[in-house]
Every structure is written in C-alpha cells, then in structure tokens.
C-alpha cells in the first residue's frame, strides 16, 4: 500500500512516449538480437582468455567514461531460502497482511554458484550512460555490438523526480530495461552481467545469516543499515551511505527495491541448485529488498514483492512504455557477474525475457 502512494507525478505528460518500437515489443527482431548476443558472447570469451577477472573485490570503470562501480565476490554456498512460519518478526509486522509471509514459505535449501555482485545499487551516473546516447557521446567510440543493444526511449520528464542524480540510485525502469542495461554493460566491458536470480539475491542479502535481517532479528538496528519509511524523509538517498552487510553489499535492504530475474512464484519444499523461474508472463516478477517507502517488515531478507501493472498506471498511453515504470519511484536494481560464464543460448534468455511487451 505504501508503495502506491509513492509514485505519481509526471505521467500526465508521458503523452509523447508511444513509438513503433514500443508497439512491437522490446525485441522486434529476434534473429538480429540473437546474432548480436553471439557477438557479445564471442567478445566475452575472448576477454576471458586474455585476462580473466581475478578473485576479490574490484572497482570497474565503464570504458571511455569516468563512471565506475564496485563489485564484491559472493562465494558459492548453500542457504535456507525463505522464512519459517513464525520467525517473521511478528511483533513488528502488521498482522493485516498475512499473505506476504506465506509467500516466503516453505523455507527450503538452495545452493548457488559463485558470482560477483555490484556492491551498490546502479546509480543514475551509470544508468544514464545507457539511457542517453549523447551522454558522453564524444567519449564513446561507435561499437557495433554495443550500439545494437536496444536502448530506452528518451524519457519525457526528469526521471529522478527531484530526488537527485549524482550518486543516487536509478529508478522507475522496467525489468526489460534492467536486462538491456546488463546486456549493454556486458557488450561494453566484455564481461557477462545479468540481474541476480531471486535465490542469488536473498543469498547475497543474508551474507551467511539466517535471521530476519542480516544483522539479527531486531528491527531497531535497521536505521544503521537502511533507508526506509522511518528515516528516508519520503525519498531515496545516495547509495552506500549506510553500513554494508557482512559481504560488503550496501543497501540490499531499503533505499530502492531491486529487480530479480525470476517470475514471482510459490516456493517448493525440495532443495534446489541455482534455481531460476524464467518468466512466462509479464506479471508478476519477483522484486526484493524493500525501499525508502516501506516499513521495516518489508525490508526483511526473505520478504518478496510481486511486480504489478499499477507500477505504470500513470502512463496514459496504450501501449504503455516497455522502458518505464513511472509510478515505481522506489524501484531499481543491481547486477551480478557469475564466475561461470553461460553459453550463448542462456545468455540470450537472461537478456531477453520474452515478455517485455506487457501493454
């Protein structure tokens, strides 16, 4: 409910957003996209042969820009995904919405392979390089395989809605847009990036803990780690300004919610290895971490949110934009870089959900 009040503004003005590309979906030419993924794949393979990324944390600069981000290693391992009945911090939770607890059950064993994860949420500094071709165009030599990645339509309004740009998290993008950012970044760097699966996200968020929050069960400590409804003053904040979790990841809880790769679906009891529920329909996808607009209970490691068409209700056009969730001003993402590089088919599927065009 809280997140509904969040969003608003601006959309009256999206009246100009409709384009042919939007009408035909995010991937008008699958064969062409497939060919480009093959080129990106080849570049990643070549890069891997020449200079594989060393283990450990690193600062990565986006080529031909001064914009950088940090990645931290997340070791392979096993964890209990979800929450057991009754351990969901009931004294703080509002009892009125019991359904959001049920979707965290049954708690089940999950194994995930090693990956690097961006230490902070993707900022506007990074994302705007992708959004606006002209942003530092002089410094961006034309590269066919980078330029072939489809890019967002130019937004009509200022997309931070006055909350800030430099060092602040990018918001209000669709999962499709986040996937295309991952593809674009991979093409530029010659390293494979994608959204985390829902399991990878929770594993990284827990950082070895089995409690409601990475630091235990006491929500009163949350103010040291997270921007949420109690301390956010009704807006997002610069990334990485609260304490990180044990693995060096900032703002996993709060600030902005984060997209995952998975369709939002009920859990199964059986143990799983590297699970990924690939999308079969546009809604709902699993979104994690809670935001500046949420109470403490929504910031628990196990808490899940299902994406919803109302997140772009203020786009007055039909078809609606495939790039912007204008009403989700509390929604962002971060990427992972798996240690094991997938094959080209997998790569295509990670970057092309097939359900981009949701009206």
């Amino acid at each position, binding site marked *: 409910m809280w997140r509904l*009040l969040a*969003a608003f*503004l601006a959309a009256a003005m999206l009246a100009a957003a409709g384009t042919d590309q939007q009408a035909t979906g995010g991937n008008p030419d699958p064969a062409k996209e497939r060919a480009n993924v093959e080129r990106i794949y080849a570049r990643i393979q070549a890069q891997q042969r020449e200079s594989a990324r060393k283990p450990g944390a690193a600062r990565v600069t986006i080529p031909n820009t001064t914009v950088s981000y940090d990645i931290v290693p997340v070791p392979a391992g096993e964890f209990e995904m979800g929450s057991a009945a009754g351990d969901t911090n009931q004294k703080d939770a509002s009892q009125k919405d019991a359904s959001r607890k049920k979707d965290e059950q049954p708690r089940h064993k999950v194994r995930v392979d090693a990956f690097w994860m961006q230490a902070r949420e993707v900022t506007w500094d990074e994302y705007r390089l992708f959004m606006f071709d002209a942003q530092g165009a002089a410094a961006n030599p034309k590269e066919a395989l980078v330029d072939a990645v489809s890019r967002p339509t130019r937004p*009509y*309004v200022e997309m931070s809605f*006055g909350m800030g740009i430099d060092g602040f998290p990018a918001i209000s993008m669709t999962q499709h847009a986040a996937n295309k950012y991952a593809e674009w970044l991979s093409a530029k760097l010659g390293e494979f990036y994608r959204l985390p699966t829902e399991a990878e996200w929770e594993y990284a968020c827990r950082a070895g803990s089995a409690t409601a929050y990475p630091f235990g069960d006491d929500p009163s400590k949350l103010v040291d780690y997270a921007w949420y409804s109690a301390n956010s003053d009704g807006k997002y904040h610069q990334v990485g300004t609260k304490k990180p979790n044990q693995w060096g990841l900032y703002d996993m809880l709060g600030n902005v919610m984060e997209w995952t790769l998975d369709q939002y679906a009920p859990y199964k009891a059986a143990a799983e290895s590297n699970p990924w529920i690939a999308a079969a329909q546009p809604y709902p996808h699993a979104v994690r971490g809670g935001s500046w607009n949420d109470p403490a209970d929504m910031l628990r490691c196990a808490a899940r949110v299902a994406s919803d068409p109302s997140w772009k209700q*203020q786009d007055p056009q*039909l078809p609606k934009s495939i790039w912007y969730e204008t009403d989700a001003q509390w929604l962002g993402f971060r990427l992972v870089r798996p240690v094991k590089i997938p094959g080209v088919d997998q790569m295509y599927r990670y970057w092309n959900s097939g359900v981009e065009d949701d009206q």
Partner: protein
Amino acid sequence: MKNADSNSGRRDFLKTTSTALGAAIGAGFPAILSAQTVTNAIKVGVVGCGGRGSGAAAQALQADEYAELTAVAEVDQSHVERCLQNLKRNAKNGARVKVDPANQFIGLDAYQKVIDSGVDVVLLATPPGFRPTHLAACIAANKHVFCEKPVSTDAPGVRWVGETAAKAAEKKLSLVAGFCWRYSNMIQDTFAQVESGAIGRLVAYYATYYTNPVKPMPPASSRPAGMSDVEWQIRNWYNFVWLCGDSIVEQAVHSADKISWAMNDVAPASCVAVGGRTIPAEGGNIYDHFEVSYLYPNGARAFLANRQIVGCYNENSDYMLGTDGTCTIGRGPIPKIEGKVNWAYSGQKYDMYQREHDLLFDSIRKGKPMNDGKRMTTTTMLAIMGRMAAYTGKQVTWDEAVNSQEKLYPEQLAWDGKLDVPSLARPGVTKLV
C-alpha cells in the same frame, strides 16, 4: 499492490439494476435506455486512435463492464489497426472491442460518422485544434463526451466550447475533461489542504514544466513526395500552432490547470510573458520555451514556465507560497506542506486516468451528468493567454484574451489541401488580434 476497487459502489449498483431491468430502470438511464434496453451496453466511439485515444478507450472499457467500443475515427488506417490490436490483447476487456470494418472511419469527416454510428459516448483524443468542432458535433447529436485537454487552440474555439458545454448541461449530457490532476485523489487532498488554509493566504504559485521535446519536427527531406500540406501538418501536429496550440497550451496546460485550481478558478486580471525558439523550427511554428507571469485580482501572482529542449535541466513541479507556509508538489514523490502546518500526503493513490472514466460512466448510468465545461475552458484560456503575451510581447488582459478574434483553425480544410504555415511569432511585431 493493486488498487482497491474504486468502483465497488457502481458495481453494486449495476448488480441491483440488472436484476430489476424493466420497470425499475425508469428515469435513471435517460440516454442509454432509448438505445439499449436489453443488453444494458454503453456503446463507445473513439475519435483519434493514437496512444492517448487508445489509452482512453482502454480506460472506458475498464470503467464499465457493459461498455463496448463500436466505432473509431482516424486519419490513418494503420493507427486503427494498432489501436484495436492493443485493446483486444487485454484479457479482461478485449472481447468488448467490437469495431467492424464498416465502423472504422478514415478522414477528416470521420468523427461525424462515428457520432452517427449509434454510439452513446464519444472519446475525443485528436490534436486539440479539432476539439471545438468535434465537441460541438457530439453535443448536437446528444452524445456523452470524454474530452481530452486542451479543449481548443484559440480564443474563438474556447468561446465555442463554452457554449457547447452549456448546451451539454441543458441536455443533461456528461462532459468530462482530460485535465487529469483534478481526478487524482492525492492532488485533490493536497489542494484541499491549501483551500482549508494550511499555508495561509496564497500569494504566489510557481509551476515548472521543463521537459524534453514531445514530437520534434522531422527534417523536411523526409516528407514523402506528393504529401499535401494538410496531411504533413496533421502527421506532425505537435509542431503547428493551429493544431497543438504550442507547448504551453498542449502540455504545460496541466500546470495551468493546477494554478487555476489553486486560484479557485478565478480568472487572472492580466499577464506578461517571455518566450521564443532557440532551436530550428524545421518548418513548424511553435516556440520551445515560455515563462508567463499572471496577476490575479487579489494581488496574487502565478508564474508558469515551460521548456522543451534536449539537454537542459528538467523539472515538473508546483511551488505554492502562502502567508503561513509552502506547498510543494513534484520534488520527490509525495506532496508536502511546510510552515505553520506540516503535512505530507499519505494514503493510497488511485489511477487518475481510470478515475475520469469511472466517474464518467457512473454518471451516465445514474443519469447524474457531470460537466467540466467551466474549468476546462478557463484553464485552456489561461494557457492561450500566456501564449498571446509571449507571442506579442505585450501585457494581455483577461478580457482581451477571451475576446480575441484570432482564429487559428483554417477556414477551408481538405486532406489533400494546400496550407501555408504562418511564420514564427515575433514579440514586438506580432499583433494581438
């Protein structure tokens, strides 16, 4: 996650009436009953099947489970195809898209054919230059109307719309305008605070509408050989004053509407403005920036600034300054009041576009017509007045503006016709007509 159903009252109403079809229906359903006593359907026609017309049609179908889309008007068949295709994809409402090829009308006279096709409601979503003509035809034929903003591009058109709106009221027809913020429960609550004195007496209102360009003019070289002036201009309607009214009238009019709302829809006494074009017009004749200062009879000022240039600072906000505090909309997602009273909006937010249609269809069902005529003409005139002051470089009074004889809509309009483009207005040279 989902909005609570804001229509539950209406649905209950429908349920009750459908079990009591017949005698009980009586006076409640004046316009509909004559045409549809059996299915209880409300037939909807759309004029202008672009992104916005398609969106409005989707909202109409969502608003009433017996609404059916039965006729459309367009100038381009491909827009019709795309519109219907997108509407039909909706799992819940797509089956009520029932537009036979015979009811897909193409051309500048297509609106009249939609009106004559037996619809009950018409959604007007063409470029605004056509709006006064289309609206008058709808009301003459006793149709309920959803009328997108703005309602005209010139003062004679506004006066005509005013007369038409009065006729709609006499005829008990519903006329709902697409000034959507009036239908946002969050903005309603915010203005209710201001009206109740939370910031004291309002002394100044500063509204910004700094955005990227909407539909920039394509290079003249891309004009297909043999395409007429009229077709070329309509296809690039945003770049021509007679069609769009300029950016301040077509887009920043949303901010003008909030200003008018805050001023209790009282007209200003006068205004002065600056405006111009800094990037090549490419054959169009609209400005790319305006800033208007309105003076209200009570001494309050309102400032409306808009710009549509790539690479500049963008912002869409409202700043209300009162004797006891400020009210700010658009700096962060939540409207805020600071000063003697501290307040921030909290609560659920409904889809304002959907709300417009929910209320429209509900009013039709209940036979309790809505009429946005007064405020939609006042707001549109407010924006046109700002444009006049910028174009002429003169101070413009409200009386001068509303009585302006400047007619932008061509006397003769044919799809294959010739139509010269007046040159860009020049402050100090362009006359107030």
